[in-house]
């Protein structure tokens, strides 16, 4: 997956590089990338979802020579890309309902099978609300039947399109419009959580992976790997939302990077229910550095603040680091 790096200026951390051989450069570095979501879309400044969707769909388009159909759940991605009569999508794209993107994907795949079109592939995509809450039943069914669809979840950790309401992917202690920072336990409650990549793995489908918009090469490699397989596949991409997270629009990629480097968002790959690879943390940092950049966590740091909640979030990150072995063995956990 990772060719050996014979290059020390930036290695393969950057999008492309004049010193890398073309096959080591990312799809996004290419003049021929399909720009699946064209300019002129109405996403906010610095939208992580617009970025994540273009990264993933462009990579899928290259992997299948442009023979791709997308089903899209309701949500930001759908709303900002297709206000009537304009569309930003440069591939066949179908929107039906909030909760049925996985089922629509299943139907398209079934239709293609009937027509004998083995060359055309299917993706279904949605935000965390359409995936972890509203579309969860359809998605689980798609997994269970092992339908030939790659489902892409762009996780920005709340219902951003309707004005930032809590979803089952909203992190603990985060402020949303339905989890206000008031009372003894402000923000989203510390519940059980709902880790959809792990739930997908429990279906033992061919491929499950997580990625962020901060590591483009990794994300593209995972899409390419997924498109080389058949059956139900799931890719969960963390996409920071400047509006909903209360962050600077320039910090979108930085936040995704910090989410990985703190251990808050483990980046991994699994096949048939078994973890096959994890992205190691390169420069470990405390969760506070990640949280402080986001106004949705501002109540944790005011006076008197909630150091016990910061400690609880740190403990969650530490558990991820331990559980998924996110550090190299040489480093102490």
């Amino acid at each position: 997956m990772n060719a050996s790096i014979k290059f020390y200026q930036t290695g393969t951390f950057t999008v492309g590089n004049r010193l890398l051989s073309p096959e080591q450069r990312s799809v996004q570095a290419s003049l021929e990338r399909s720009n699946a979501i064209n300019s002129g879309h109405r996403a906010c400044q610095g939208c992580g979802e617009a970025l994540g969707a273009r990264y993933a769909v462009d990579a899928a388009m290259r992997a299948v020579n442009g023979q791709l159909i997308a089903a899209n759940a309701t949500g930001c991605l759908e709303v900002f890309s297709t206000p009537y009569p304009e569309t930003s999508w440069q591939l066949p794209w179908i929107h039906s309902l909030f909760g049925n993107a996985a089922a629509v994907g299943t139907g398209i795949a079934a239709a293609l099978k009937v027509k004998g079109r083995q060359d055309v592939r299917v993706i279904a995509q949605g935000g965390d609300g359409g995936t972890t809450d509203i579309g969860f039943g359809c998605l689980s069914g798609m997994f269970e039947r092992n339908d030939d669809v790659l489902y892409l979840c762009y996780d920005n950790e709340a219902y951003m399109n309707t004005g930032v309401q809590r979803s089952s992917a909203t992190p603990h202690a985060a402020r949303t419009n339905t989890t206000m920072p008031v009372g003894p336990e402000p923000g989203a409650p510390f519940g059980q959580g709902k880790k959809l990549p792990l739930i997908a793995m429990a279906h033992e489908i061919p491929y499950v992976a997580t990625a962020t918009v901060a590591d483009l090469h990794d994300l593209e490699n995972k899409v390419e790997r997924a498109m080389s397989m058949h059956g139900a596949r799931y890719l969960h991409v963390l996409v920071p939302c400047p509006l909903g997270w209360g962050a600077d629009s320039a910090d979108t990629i930085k936040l995704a990077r910090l989410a990985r480097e703190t251990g808050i968002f483990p980046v991994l790959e699994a096949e048939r229910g078994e973890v096959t690879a994890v992205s190691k943390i390169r420069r470990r940092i405390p969760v506070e550095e990640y949280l402080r950049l986001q106004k949705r966590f501002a109540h944790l740091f005011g006076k008197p603040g909630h150091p016990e909640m910061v400690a609880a979030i740190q403990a969650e990150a530490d558990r991820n680091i331990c559980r998924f072995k996110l550090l190299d063995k040489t480093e102490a956990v």
Partner: protein
Amino acid sequence: MDKPFAITLDPGSSLANKTGSWRTMRPVYVDRLPPCNAQCPAGEDIQGWLYHAESGDYETAWRQLVRDNPFPAIMGRVCYHTCESVCNRGKLDEPVGINSVERFLGDEAITRGWRFEPPAADSGKRVLVVGAGPSGMSAAYHLRRLGHRVTVYEAGPLMGGMMRFGIPQYRLPRDVLDAEMQRIVDLGAEVRLNSKVKRIEEMMAEFDAAFLAVGAHIGKRAFIPAKDGSRILDAVSVLRSMEGEEKPMLGRRVVVYGGGNTAIDVARTARRLGATEAIIVYRRTREKMPAHDFEVEEALQEGVMVKWLSTIKQQGADGDAGALTIEKMELDEKGFPQPTGEFETLEADSLVLALGQDVDLSLLDGVPGLELKDGVVQVDPATMMAGRAGLFAGGDMVPAERNVTVAVGHGKKAARHIDAWLRGTRYAPPPKHELASFERLNTWYYSDAPKTMRPQLDLARRTGSFDEVQGGLTEDNALFEARRCLSCGNCFECDNCYGVCPDNAVIKLGPGQRFQFNYDYCKGCGICVAECPCGAIEMVAEEV
């Protein structure tokens, strides 16, 4: 119907929606001044030539380098590379080995016989250069490239000046020196050896302008009471005589008095000539020593000894011609050495004084309008012109730090101003870019890598001969080293801005052409600025 699979209707494209109107700040591509370039006394575009070396295009790199400095192979050996001490990479792991890549390029040029591009059209102007040292030959080179006829008068028998008569062979092999000097002669500069200029004013009639670059060849003396027959030499003479047939006779115990680089050079030379003990006597401490620490370290490794906090009061006490009376010193609160009244005796076959050097300024006698102060000529620091019209000076002769790189820089600067003066204009240096500070980099994107150390000759072999002490880089590790450059403040086409824009508002113009913003769609989010590894984009406010 030529439509993609499953498309039957023409949708309206979102391209109709010019989201650029949302913007209050716009990103702009900039070039910033890398700290190495800002620091280089010779004004080299270090980041610029490393850029070419990174892709293995060594000849282009060399050509970019020699636009500012014609001596990469010499520089790669004797330059004190202050560029490396300001290198931003030093804050990440270790500075880029700029000096060693420079040397590699210089050596490649010699091996492959690369030559300078032919000079510009003949200007018909004649310029006199006095002194074929680093400053004079640098000026000759730049003047020649600008199309002027150059005649260099050199008092000594060979070209190189202090690089030949002041720098030992183990630091600068003479074939390297000869090759880079000869290349300037091949460019058409006329060099007259053994031709000392006695009165510059008398020569000015023959030339349209002159550049004086006489080195500091006269060793300073200190008054040390001594008996007849005692052997006191000065460091410059010792180093100069190393170039002749007769090597200096220093004996088995050599004492060197002084704490500069010359003192170190002489002590190391003495060891190589067979002295069993070479002892440096210096009045202050190692921290206060003006010599570069790496040279002190190499000298100590070679067995040179140092008596810190010591001065020499007398030679030949008690009728013993070889006995030196040493007084111990101590530093006062301000860090100045003060005598303690404690004495000891040190036996020595010879005493070499390395207490600084002076320039022979006698050629300036009778020149009207000159100002001489502290043994050097005062020049306009902006143009290098002395008080007399058309007379320029640089190198050791003018008030500045004395080293090869500074001298080379003077030569370049003076050449530009001489050229302008000859054309009846004034040279205006281009405005300097803002400094590319470490804080502007996004260092996440750079991978960690150690600096390649130049292999050092074995200690035993080093002290026994005048072979070069520092080895060079091979092509493999030169490429490695060049690629460690962070390209501070200058786009190196990593495609990050092109990739990270959520609005596809960056246009990639192709190899070597960099990028452009599409302000029709750029919303001004600033991600490209935040994720640019080298800080080559900035946000500026939109005019409202």
